[in-house]
């Protein structure tokens, strides 16, 4: 039993090593750690470094009070005639001890509450979260003041109060992390083979939660240090110890401002900033390293999505019989720390009006990137580096921002994958369709737009009455229909549908495909259907482009492609799908996995998985050869190749 569990715990170690490397890359975290180390060393060496002992009982001489900085007192003296610099150095001890001790208490409570609430769940879990919510609402500082005032201000009390009130964020963090880990496959598996709670907590939950807790602890320390100095400034510090907040309290309330004694005010304040900034920098860097949160950003302004020096053949003069969309030698690269990665390489295809073209491939084959490149919607870092896209005689890659906005949706529109979030959840469906209509036809009155939106919704089988509803009231299939209605809003020439049936059940899939097919017929629109599902392609497509590893493997009309596939990849792909005409045929998956962008084979991209590969395949990249009325990129089809 244990062997299997050992094998499944390894991902944690891997990510931790990666996190450590990510942390070292963070200059900010290293600076914070450095600032903190200086403070800790000074605190430890205080008796050696400080020239005066601030705890010594010396009779106050009125002449010593608020002396300006001098050789004798580098930072002057305070309201009691004591050396500010020495007090400052000793003050680091209090701040750091309180910060650390309070953070340990907060972490113990928060960690326990979080793990129990996350792991146990049930009524105990919800009760614990209710309690956490309660403490989250009660203003910390006010409660700290009341507690310290009533119990009496000693260092121990202050530590306890700050710690006992500071655990809520830790509890929430630990709970959500525990919940996530608990649902992971390897934990489920461990449970299924009979591992006990103690084992799962020790081997799975703790390793995942502890690093996060440690990062969180650093931030809790910074909060605790701030709280301690605030309490001390408000007169609730331990009167027997010297702390920065208390130094500020004494100086501020005992005439440092009117005496102009900035040296008694500024240094202790900056000391607090130093330590809190150090811990915050360190904590933030640790958190980011453990939990990188670089998200997609659809509005990020990128320099350009089309390389100025892209190589392409000049667009030929349009002639009447031309396809509406011509893609020629399109290549797209993404920037990466190790250099540019080519996600789409030399892709060419045509789409005629009224034709439905299937763009098929596994995930990572570059089909979605191809489409985003054509639509000029590449994410930041992605760039068209070669080729051309001609739409009805117009060079799409040459349009400027204004022309592009006018082009979008009026000539070419999109139906997105997973209609779940493709529409704005806080605006009604009708409102979003109307927005598109009126954007591109500014003369349309409100009533006309409403009527048109109603017609569109009716066309896709929703009914105009539901226009005033929000996306979350629609079912998955309905949302996909609504998205199609939105795509039809400005009567485009071409619709690109990116995985329009993924995540829908088979019945709904068939309805959506029927709808798309009907629309293509009725409106004479061209449709590009991007999908990984050959069944979908078989149902509606006239032509098919099969993509593999960023390039086109084969292109042909759908009937021929299914009957007589030329490329070994297409052949294997077809064998891995059930065929209703030959239900007795054995299904076979393709051994191996698709190539990664950073490890693309130099020759044919499919060669490593191809049963027919020979030496030439590893050396050269095959161009497209004419075969069976279509094109396939495989040396087996090279007429000059003298292999069988």
């Amino acid at each position, binding site marked *: 039993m244990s062997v299997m569990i050992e094998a499944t715990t390894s991902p944690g170690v891997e990510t931790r090593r990666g996190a450590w490397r990510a942390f070292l890359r963070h200059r900010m975290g290293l600076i914070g750690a450095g600032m903190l180390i200086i403070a800790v060393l000074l605190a430890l060496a205080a008796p050696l470094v400080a020239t005066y002992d601030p705890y010594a009982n010396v009779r106050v001489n009125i002449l010593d009070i608020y002396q300006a900085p001098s050789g004798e007192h580098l930072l002057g003296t305070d309201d009691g005639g004591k050396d500010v610099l020495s007090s400052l150095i000793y003050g680091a001890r209090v701040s750091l001890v309180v910060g650390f001790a309070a953070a340990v208490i907060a972490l113990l409570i928060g960690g326990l509450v979080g793990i129990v609430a996350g792991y146990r769940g049930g009524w105990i879990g919800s009760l614990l979260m209710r309690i956490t919510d309660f403490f989250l609402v009660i203003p910390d500082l006010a409660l700290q003041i009341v507690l310290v005032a009533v119990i009496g201000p000693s260092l121990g009390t202050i530590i306890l109060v700050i710690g006992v009130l500071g655990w809520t964020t830790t509890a929430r963090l630990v709970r959500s992390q525990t919940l996530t880990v608990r649902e992971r496959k390897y934990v489920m598996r461990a449970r299924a083979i009979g591992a006990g709670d103690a084992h799962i907590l020790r081997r799975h939950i703790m390793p995942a939660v502890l690093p996060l807790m440690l990062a969180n602890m650093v931030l809790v320390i910074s909060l605790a240090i701030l709280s301690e100095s605030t309490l001390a400034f408000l007169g609730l510090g331990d009167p027997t110890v010297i702390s920065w907040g208390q130094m500020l309290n004494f100086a501020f309330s005992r005439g440092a401002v009117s005496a102009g004694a900035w040296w008694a005010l500024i240094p202790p304040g900056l000391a607090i900033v130093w330590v809190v900034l150090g811990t915050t920098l360190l904590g933030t860097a640790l958190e980011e390293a453990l939990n990188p949160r670089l998200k997609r950003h659809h509005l990020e302004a990128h320099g350009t999505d089309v390389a100025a020096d892209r190589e392409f053949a000049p667009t030929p003069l349009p002639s009447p019989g031309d396809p509406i969309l011509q893609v020629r030698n399109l290549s797209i690269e993404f920037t990466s720390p190790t250099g540019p990665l080519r996600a789409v390489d030399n892709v060419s295809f045509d789409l005629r009006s009224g034709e439905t073209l299937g763009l098929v491939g596994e995930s990572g084959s570059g089909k979605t990137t191809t489409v985003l490149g054509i639509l000029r919607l590449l994410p930041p870092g992605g760039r068209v580096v070669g080729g051309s896209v001609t739409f009805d005689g117009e060079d799409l890659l040459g349009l400027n921002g204004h022309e592009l906005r006018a082009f979008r949706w009026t000539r070419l529109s999109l139906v997105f994958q*997973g209609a779940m979030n493709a529409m704005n959840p806080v605006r009604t469906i009708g409102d979003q369709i109307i927005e598109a209509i009126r954007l591109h036809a500014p003369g349309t009155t409100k009533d006309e737009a409403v009527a048109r939106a109603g017609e569109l919704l009716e066309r896709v089988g929703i009914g105009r009455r539901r226009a005033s509803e929000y996306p979350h009231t629609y079912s998955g299939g309905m949302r996909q229909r609504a998205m199609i209605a939105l795509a039809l809003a400005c009567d485009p020439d071409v619709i690109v549908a990116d995985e329009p049936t993924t995540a829908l059940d088979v019945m709904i899939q068939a309805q959506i495909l029927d709808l798309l097919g009907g629309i293509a017929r009725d409106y004479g629109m061209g449709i590009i259907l991007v999908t990984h599902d050959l069944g979908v392609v078989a149902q509606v497509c006239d032509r098919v482009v099969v993509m593999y590893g960023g390039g086109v493997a084969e292109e042909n009309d759908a009937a021929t492609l299914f009957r007589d596939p030329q490329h070994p990849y297409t052949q294997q792909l077809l064998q891995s799908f059930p065929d209703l005409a030959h239900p007795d045929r054995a299904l076979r998956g393709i051994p191996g996995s698709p190539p990664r962008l950073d490890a693309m084979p130099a020759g044919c991209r499919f060669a490593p998985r191809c049963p027919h590969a020979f030496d030439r395949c590893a050396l050269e990249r095959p161009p497209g050869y004419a075969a069976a009325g279509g094109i396939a990129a495989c040396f087996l089809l090279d007429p000059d190749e003298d292999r069988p």
Partner: protein
Amino acid sequence: MSGRGGYFLRKVGWALVTILVVVSFNFLLFRVLPGDPAKSGLRDPRLNPAAVEALRERFGLDKPVIFDIESGNLFDSQFTAYLGALSRGDLGTSYAFRDQPVSDLIGRALVNTLWLVVPSQALAILLGAALGLVAAWRRGRPLDAVALTFSLFMWSLPTFFLGIILLVAGAKWFGLPTAGRITIGAEFATFWDVAWDVGRHLLLPTLTLTLVLIGEYMLIMRSSVLDIFGEDYILTARATGLSTYRIIRHHALRNAMLPMVTLIALNLGFTVSGAIQVEAVYSWPGLGALTVDAVGDRDYPVLQGAFLMIAVSVVVANLIAELIYGWLDPRVSED
């Protein structure tokens, strides 16, 4: 319960429970903990035993704390007496200000605190949100870096220290008043003169509190907006041909409001903490200064009342935020 009405009811119910817990906690804290305030008031050696008895009766200290088991009258206890007094708005009498009802002191202080907190909060939310929006839109650009550094620095700067710095600077270079609400002993001809004087007193505290809060709201807005910029519907909006301005205005802002409302509510403790410190530095006679002064004077009835007021205000403000959320988000009625 379902639907929007159910959501509102649940939230109001939870707020009431929270307030009840706060009230009980507030009561027990001041009875049970070692520093028992009412008792310590009675330890004054100058009081004769009869006077002590009279005081004990007046404060209800002759009764049991929570439940009266002996007399059979179960609910005749200090706690029920406290609840009864509370329901009449009676928070006791201040020790430090003789014969001043605590409720009067707190009422005046609350008004002053609101004069400080409401404008600062509004200003900080507005500026912070604008800054956060631009920082998110220009993620990774110089402006984003500047905004992040600013908020990191403001976070590390103790509020009271910033207050002291601004106080010194404001007094020295702009001759602004640094303490209190109004110039003491000055004669004012018209209402506008009064307003002008109070406004001058309010300037530095408001500036301090606003600066402290901006960084926080900027961070909140930045991360909310970044979340939304990654959503599919933003890509849809772009593909539709909407300009960036329109996408932000009509699609991102409204959606970012939702997490903002929640997080502003969760952050109220931070605002209260800032207000207490600012009031202490500038002697602004609000709830915070009242609390701090009560600690110094060992004026426990005022401390107890002020804490109750602060906690209940935050709970109520939180409730308002949650109700606004329920009203803004159409999905609430589903849950």
